[in-house]
């Protein structure tokens, strides 16, 4: 294998590993193509410690004459330290880690080599397709249809082959409308609200440009969405100023005169570099325990992370309110339609739709609204908060989504079928994974690189019986009602489970979760069954 070129020293003895919650241990360090393997000498039965190289965000080495220290800062925010005897070994190991952790060829990544016994490559990749999803929603079959217009990815390279659109709009119109939207991302259905018959759609920005171009087909498409009712809302995830400026570079917004019945609202959601820097600042603030309270609060504020959480939840709440309370359809878009639009549309669905709050429903939502919808995971999650590499397209939009979902679950602890460990697992997997789910930037890329044939799907793995138990919320009581989150600052809290997961503080909370779990499942439920069994 070509990985061996990168490995100058494969094995080092007498390495000391220091990591959170464990005493420093001495053992053998081994570098392979995708992992660091650390095994305790003395052959006790403890499993060796395995670290996916892809998980390493930054590496700092301090070689000295006879030994060296390597600090590994991981994308899951864990910080490890290796004390390696021998300067040369230290430097070799460090350089292997550096090159192997930054390999960018998708087909060389670990998911292409991971073959767990409990999954088969013959299984369907993913939980559901657009067609299957459509087939389940009988109530929309009159007004909506599945279009295969993008079957060869020629209309929109980042869309899946099939999308749901109004029945009255033919593929030809879609092709023309797509030309008027950035990246060909014309408005498509993401949620249908049964009670009001209204929908949430998403798209990218219209390419109206500086001279306010129009597109008849795009207008027709949106007209068809609110056919019969007089009003629809366009939630633009940029400030109106940003939307104005976008016209200078060929983008733009839907003007009132061209889109009759559509009212536009602007909510500025940060993305890209701003969001990435926000994460970096937050993680930096969490890393230093020696701060005074004043300095901590000031750094927390300065990171703006919780402000982003607040804005995202508030915008999603607005969308949900339009649909449920006012009975109007909504189109969400920013510029590319691959980041904040997905964030807002998926949060709005969680607020409204009890089906998306079950474990399987939530994973299905992520698959539709993020994986299939073309969130560029590979670009966004190339690096996390510790990396010193110059930022390119990194942005923790998906982590922000998970944080917002955690806030929802904190405010409605009984309403979600899934648990905090699931969100934490996803936050880790999105950066470094054994599975192929978060590889590539679009459905097209996944097809080209063979992800769907040669890797396993994380979501399917999470739904296996024994995993399901771990990721289910023991307190879950389904509610059909919408769950309206409070966006008042005291209601929004730092997600300790993620950002402080390597401190004792989080450890106590994990223990408390276990107690809750025991209380509900091992004490209450079996007892209930026992009584039923003895009764009769």
């Amino acid at each position, binding site marked *: 294998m070509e990985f061996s070129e990168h490995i100058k020293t494969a094995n080092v003895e007498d390495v000391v590993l220091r990591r959170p919650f464990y005493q420093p241990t001495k053992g053998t360090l081994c570098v392979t193509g995708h992992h660091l393997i650390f095994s305790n000498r003395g052959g006790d039965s403890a499993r060796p410690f395995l670290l996916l190289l892809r998980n390493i965000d930054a590496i700092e080495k301090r070689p000295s004459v006879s030994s060296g220290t390597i600090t590994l800062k991981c994308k899951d925010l864990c910080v490890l330290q290796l004390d390696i005897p021998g300067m040369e070994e230290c430097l070799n190991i460090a350089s292997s880690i550096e090159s192997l952790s930054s390999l960018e060829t998708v087909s060389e990544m670990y998911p292409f080599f991971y073959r767990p016994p409990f999954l088969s490559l013959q299984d369907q990749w993913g939980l559901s397709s657009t067609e299957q999803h459509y087939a389940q929603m009988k109530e929309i079959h009159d007004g909506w249809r599945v279009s295969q217009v993008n079957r060869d990815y020629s209309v929109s390279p980042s869309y899946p082959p099939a999308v749901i659109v109004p029945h009255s709009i033919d593929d030809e119109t879609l092709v023309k409308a797509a030309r008027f939207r950035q990246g060909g991302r014309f408005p498509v259905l993401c949620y249908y609200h049964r009670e009001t018959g209204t929908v949430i759609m998403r798209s990218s920005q219209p390419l109206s440009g500086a001279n306010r171009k129009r597109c008849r087909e795009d207008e027709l498409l949106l007209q068809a969405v609110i056919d019969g009712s007089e009003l629809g809302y366009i939630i633009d995830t940029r*400030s*109106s100023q940003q*939307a104005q400026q976008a016209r200078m570079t060929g983008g733009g917004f839907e003007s009132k005169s061209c889109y009759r019945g559509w009212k536009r609202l602007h909510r500025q959601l940060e993305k890209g570099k701003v969001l990435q820097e926000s994460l970096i600042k937050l993680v930096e603030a969490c890393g230093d325990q020696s701060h005074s309270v004043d300095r901590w*609060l000031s750094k927390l*504020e300065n990171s703006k992370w919780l402000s982003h959480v607040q804005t995202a939840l508030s915008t999603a709440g607005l969308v949900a309110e339009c649909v449920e309370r006012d009975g109007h359809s909504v189109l969400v878009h920013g510029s590319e339609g691959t980041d904040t639009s997905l964030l807002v549309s998926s949060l709005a669905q969680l607020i409204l739709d009890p089906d998306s709050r079950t474990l399987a429903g939530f994973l299905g939502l992520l698959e539709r609204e993020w994986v299939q919808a073309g969130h560029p995971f590979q670009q966004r999650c190339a690096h996390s908060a510790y990396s010193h590499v110059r930022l390119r397209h990194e942005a923790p939009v998906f982590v922000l989504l998970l944080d917002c979902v955690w806030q929802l679950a904190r405010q409605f602890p009984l309403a979600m079928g899934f648990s905090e460990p699931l969100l934490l697992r996803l936050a880790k997997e999105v950066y470094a994974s054994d599975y192929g789910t978060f590889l590539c930037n679009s459905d097209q890329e996944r097809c080209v690189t063979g992800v769907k044939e040669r890797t396993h799907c994380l979501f399917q793995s999470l739904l296996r019986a024994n995993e399901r138990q771990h990721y289910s919320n023991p307190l879950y009581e389904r509610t059909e009602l919408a769950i*309206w989150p409070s966006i008042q600052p005291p209601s929004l809290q730092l997600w300790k489970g993620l950002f402080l997961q390597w401190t004792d503080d989080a450890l106590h909370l994990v223990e408390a979760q276990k107690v809750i779990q025991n209380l509900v499942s091992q004490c209450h439920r079996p*007892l209930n069954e026992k*009584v039923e069994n003895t*009764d009769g």
Partner: protein
Amino acid sequence: MFNRNVENVRLIDTVTSRRASVGTLYLTATHTIFVENETEILTETWVLHSLVFSVEKQASTTTGCPLLVRCKNFQVLQFVIPQERDCHDVHVSLLHLSRPEHYEELYCFSYNANSDREDRRKAWDFINLKAEYSRMGLPNHLWKLTPANHHYKVSDTYPADLYVPKSATPPVIMGSSKFRSRGRFPTLSYYYKENHAAICRSSQPLSGFSARCLEDEQMLEAIVRSNPRSDFMYVVDTRPKLNAMANRAAGKGYENEDNYSNIKFHFVGIENIHVMRNSLQKMLEVSEAHFPSMSYFLEGLESSGWLKHIKAVVDAGVFITKAIAEEGISVLVHCSDGWDRTAQVCSVASVLLDPYYRTLKGLMVLIERDWVSFGHKFSHRNNHLNGDPKEVSPVIDQFLECVWQLSEQFPCAFEYNERFLITIHHHVYSCQYGNFIGNNQKERTELGLQEKTHSLWTYLWKNRTDYINPLYRPDHSQTQGVLRPLTAPYCFKFWGALYNRFDRGIHPRQSVMEYLMAIREETQQLEEQLASHEMKILNVEKQQKKSVNLETNMFDRSPAVWASPPSNSSVGLANTPGDYSGLGGFLKSPYQQKEPENSLLILPWPQELRKPTDPDLSTNGDDQESGIAGLSCLSPPNEESAKDPDSDETAYSAA
């Protein structure tokens, strides 16, 4: 008796500022009562006069004259009264009623006054400090009970019963007390029987720049000697060093290490009552803001300094805990008078050291010992009477918050829940029970509180199922022995459940605690049922052995009557959207001015959807979601209201 009612008063929902209910305002001898007259169900808001912190009459508008009532339990009520004159009258009356001049006017003396005297007297014995000291293992061969302060002749702010080192003779005690502010000589607060180390407390020494007192030095030496395994002790001055030095100019100050053999002196730097009062005020301004941005909130929280002060108290508690439990060294704690910061620090250390104080009864005992008996000036600090506003300070509030912060960090280590702490906070101010009236034991004895008022502790104990933390595991590793909390700044959070107690919108809409409490209750019922089923099975089997012919119709086939599983009604799902259009400020953007078409889009709160039948919107329903129905100021006017601590039938009939 003053008696007055005003009609057509509007009560504005201070959280949304949009909803208002119309009704009649009654002022009774003890409560302000607002009765809504539009709803089908009679909705009432009761506010105890003793809980009123301030009454503010604001400038009249066309709709009437606004009156803002702020309460000590952080409830804020805004009334709009149609006539300015009525508003003036209510304002003056309420000011008068909420600031009594004499103890005898306080609510506790009229609350449920007709109950059996003997029962009431007995109820006071529920918390017994003698039993507490003997639980610690005292008196023993190292510590003794001294009669020195009987009849409060040495210090009128100390309790009558005090524990001192066995070797401390009466002349030493007398001499030491003369060298300490208000005669508060070093005495025992907590004895750690595992290693004989002790937490002692006192006031500051009257050392000035150079004064010495042989007896005081002997007293400290006696404390060192009463811990056989150590040869020195810590003296912890909880004040900032600068404050302590300033006190020297007034002939007070702190211990000089050169004069006292075998002490190590240590400042911990907790600010004084005035700083704390202002800090709380600033934090409340932040928490009351309508739809603030995250940045405004965090900046405000930072500049209030509140969490910094809380951390300082916990840090001091951690320092003492380490000295006692890890080093085995005794500690003397003082501040200036030794009744504010000293009480905070000693009691936080006790909570950390001894699992007993993490139980329901333990916390009651602790407050009774370190706060009530040692002369924390409740009536001054909590503004019970019309007195000096500079004496008011949230000192015990901070202690309760420290306990809450710890319980957030160790969710399984405390037997009591958040509601317990909030209830105690409420009653520290309410003056409904006699426990916190007056400033010291002497005053309380003279007032005859045990004869004339009720004890909060028995009330809480009777209702203890409401206050149990379902996650508490006495056998859990977290729970046993000494708590070692992290004190990194991120461990300290804003306590929304207390400071925004009445802003229901900000609390989690479903409560894990209530769900678990319901489950626990159900589990108990199931267990009983299981036992009874098993009993029956056993019986049946016996019967079958005796006579196989007997049919199984011996079974009692009556349907099971266990409680329905915890439903949404018991855990409450508040289901109204927040004000999502309030943020983001799209109305202000320059672009909107150019294209006014969009400026119409103030998203309407769907008022028409708020039917009164919606259980989430009726006031009573709301109150249950907040999880503190039992101590709220809202009480339905039915027979059950007698159970409600805030309602009083005599008061209601007076209206």
